[in-house]
């Protein structure tokens, strides 16, 4: 991974652990993941000293676990809350990533996260820029555009 992608991945892993008690398997060494899965895709953009955007995909089963852990309830009580939980994961990750990368002085305007239609990151135009991390054999993917 590039240094920025590596920093983003580490921030994302930290957020998943702290807020959703989700722990990551070893990072893939070749950064490929041939996996047909149904994911929830979220995107967010930011402006400021540097402009950029990020797309994040989380496997639906994992998103259910994330939502249940964040909300403190059973997975069968989660109804349509996975998207909102994933939006917050991305929101917190981007905010913390920008501080880690640029320090505490610069001001960034981080947009409101939106769901994106592609539910498989391999179907996007930028599939060759995908970064993968794995939790319990389930994929999380992100594309950072800066």
């Amino acid at each position, binding site marked *: 991974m590039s240094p920025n992608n590596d920093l983003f991945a580490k921030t994302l892993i930290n957020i998943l652990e702290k807020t959703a008690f989700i722990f990551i398997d070893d990072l893939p060494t070749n950064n490929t993941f041939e996996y047909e899965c149904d994911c929830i895709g979220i995107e967010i953009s930011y402006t400021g000293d540097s402009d950029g955007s990020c797309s994040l995909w989380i496997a639906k089963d994992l998103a259910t676990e994330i939502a249940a852990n964040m909300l403190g309830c059973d997975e069968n009580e989660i109804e349509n809350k996975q998207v909102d939980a994933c939006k917050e994961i991305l*929101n917190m990750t981007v905010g913390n990533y920008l501080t880690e990368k640029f320090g505490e002085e610069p001001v960034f305007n981080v947009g409101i996260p939106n769901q994106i239609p592609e539910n498989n990151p391999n179907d996007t135009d930028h599939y060759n820029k995908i970064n993968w991390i794995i939790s319990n054999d389930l994929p999380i993917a992100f594309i950072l555009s800066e």
Partner: protein
Amino acid sequence: MAYSILITDDSETIRAVLKRTISMTELPVSAIYESSHGKEALEVLHNEWVDIVFTDINMPEMNGIELISEMKKHPEYRKTPVVVISTEGSTTRVKELKEKGINDYIRKPFTPESIRDVILKTLGGWNESK
């Protein structure tokens, strides 16, 4: 006496997480109101007594900064303490918000300890509230 708290965030997840976190502080709470943006928050403030407002910044309809400005215009709740909870970590932004009149700022992700500490610091301990 127990606290009455208003949580303003467009994320249902964050509102639920914050409610849970507040319950984990074991502070006495009489009511927790929720709103998904600033306009809804103003409706709550108009109709209910609120001891402290937790608000996000980026929200549709009316964002957190606009909410803070609107609150300052109303005598009945212009002195209600406001704590911003946001993902942004810029000290410049925090300084700007404090100049607009917020009482404190907490970054996401937050802990029960940070929520408890800010409530006690802002409201002066539950034996002394109201």
